[in-house]
């Protein structure tokens, strides 16, 4: 099978999914878990936020169906849309934080809970720490660490220069380390 044939088949997959309500439901139930998991892990296991962003992702995917050329897996394409939804969300959060001047306070609160979290070493604690970070820190960790994007690409998503994004990533890791506690600090 050629790459061209695969593209056409993948593009057809989306068209077939939209061909009837029944087909769409089957396709939605098959693809939603992977998109939802992607979003959930990047928003600190915030279930309601993950649900909202997943929903927005599928709404956008239906609107932009003509842009799907089938050259990637359909879930990869959906996750690309979700990434932009996350970036939008983080940007909104960041604006909100600036408005409320809460950035510093929240960071301190996260640090205060670090002792308890340090030894838990479970995903819930990691998620809690991640969720406690400032939006910009969460965004850069999600895009660079989880998505594996180059810093420049993550910066483009977040509307920052590569240098500023690199600096932000450094600070985000420091924030996570301090919030997560000693396990990461001792070696």
């Amino acid at each position, binding site marked *: 099978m050629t790459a061209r044939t695969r*593209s056409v088949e993948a*593009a057809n997959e989306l*068209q077939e999914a*939209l*061909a009837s*309500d029944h087909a*769409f*439901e089957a396709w*939605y*139930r098959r693809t*939603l*878990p992977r998109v*939802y*998991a992607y979003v*959930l*892990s*990047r928003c*600190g*296991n915030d*279930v309601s936020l*993950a*649900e909202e962003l*997943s*929903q927005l992702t*599928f*709404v956008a995917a*239906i*609107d932009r*169906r*003509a*842009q*799907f*050329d*089938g*050259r990637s897996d359909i879930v990869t394409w959906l996750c690309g849309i979700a990434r932009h939804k996350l970036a939008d969300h983080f940007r909104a959060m960041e604006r909100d934080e600036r408005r409320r001047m809460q950035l510093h306070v929240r960071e301190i609160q996260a640090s205060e809970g670090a002792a308890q979290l340090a030894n838990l070493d479970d*995903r819930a604690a*990691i*998620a809690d720490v*991640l969720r406690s970070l400032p939006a910009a820190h969460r965004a850069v*960790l999600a895009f660079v*660490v*989880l998505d594996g994007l180059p810093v420049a690409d993550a910066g483009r998503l977040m509307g920052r220069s590569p240098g500023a994004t690199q600096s932000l990533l450094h600070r985000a*890791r420091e924030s*996570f*380390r301090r919030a*997560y506690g000693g396990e*990461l*600090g*001792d*070696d």
Partner: protein
Amino acid sequence: MTDGRADLRVDMQIRRLETPVRPDEAFVSASLADLLPQVRRARSRDASWLGRLSRGLAVTPRIREWWASPRRVALGGILVLIALVLFGLLVVIIGSHRRLPPPFGLAGNGRIAYVEQGHVDTADLNGGDRRQLPLGPGFQTEPRFSPDGTRIVFKHFAQSPNQGPADVEVADADGLNLVVVTRAVTGLSHISWSPDSQDVAFSGALGPGADHGYVAHADGSGSPVDLGTFGTGAWDPTWSSDGTRLVIVSELGMFVVNRDGTHSSLIVGGETVKEFGQRGEAAEWSPDGTLIVYTAIDLNDSQQVWVVGLDGLPPRRISLDTSLGRDATWSPDGTRLAYMRRGSGLGPVLTICDPTGRVLDILPRAYAWYQPIWSPDGTKIVVTDDRPGPDNVPGPAVRVIVDLARKQPDIIIPAPGITPDDVPDWAASWQRVAKP
């Protein structure tokens, strides 16, 4: 611990969040219910031709790749800008060109040209805005607009109306850019435009001897093509609707001849006819080119209207149940004819009939009218009346615009000749313009 290793451990911890997880079923059901209406709308749009087109374009990888480059996007923008400028220029150029009517069939009503005191005047379709065309000194008669409405041809007499040799002259419809097509034609007939408005046909003598038929370029270039004398001398050629042939008459009869003078054939013999034609054209082709209508005076001095085809069948008389019929002319769409027939004692009346001769309408308001001319849209007729007014006595001639539906009153255009007897054969010419 180095920064690099510390970063690595942070990243490893964060990546532990990536585990398979299923969304809550309640959320799945609720979101599905929200999405399905949008899916249905998308399906409906995709089913339209516009949807299919846009989808087809969007999923073409090469097109997507091409537009991925900002430089190419800029180039595309420039090309679009250039295309818009060119389109604008095209619109300006097309807009500056006048739309032209077809040579036959219904068209819009333009101005009316007629002769008043030896000069060509024009009026608007309601008889107003009358003005004399600037055609120079001398006297002009029998103006006729070209089928495309852009030019006008007329006879020009240097000394006095209808006396002596005349020039065939063509000008723009507003009287400017005058061109002499042929000089000094003795016995110059009416002048007939070719359907493509490029040539004119006429008869007369360019030197001593009998009258010939001629075809000449309307721009005055070249020498006229001699159609011949058809025996004793030809008169009144008129064009076929396809512009390839002409009908022309002589004392020997009515002939059809190619526009270059070749292949003439007799279609109505002259042995039973004293004279073909009356006041204007000897004959007129139907717009579809299948029939020729003509006026003839038979051996009993009865003037009647006849129709003949090119199929060899004998002519049919269409001026039925009257002792006089003349000046027949086809309506622009070829479904009717107008002619003058004897009225109730005071003079001929304007009659509308179908091609079989069945009378459709008679408009008996005024008498002594002649030479009816259809408006290009087929709703009106302009005639000449040299006995205007209710008393029906000779007086200064007028042109009368008659509404065939009788919804509008007659429009009178004063158009006296230089003398009371000076009434031109050709009543008027109605300019064809593109339909609005």
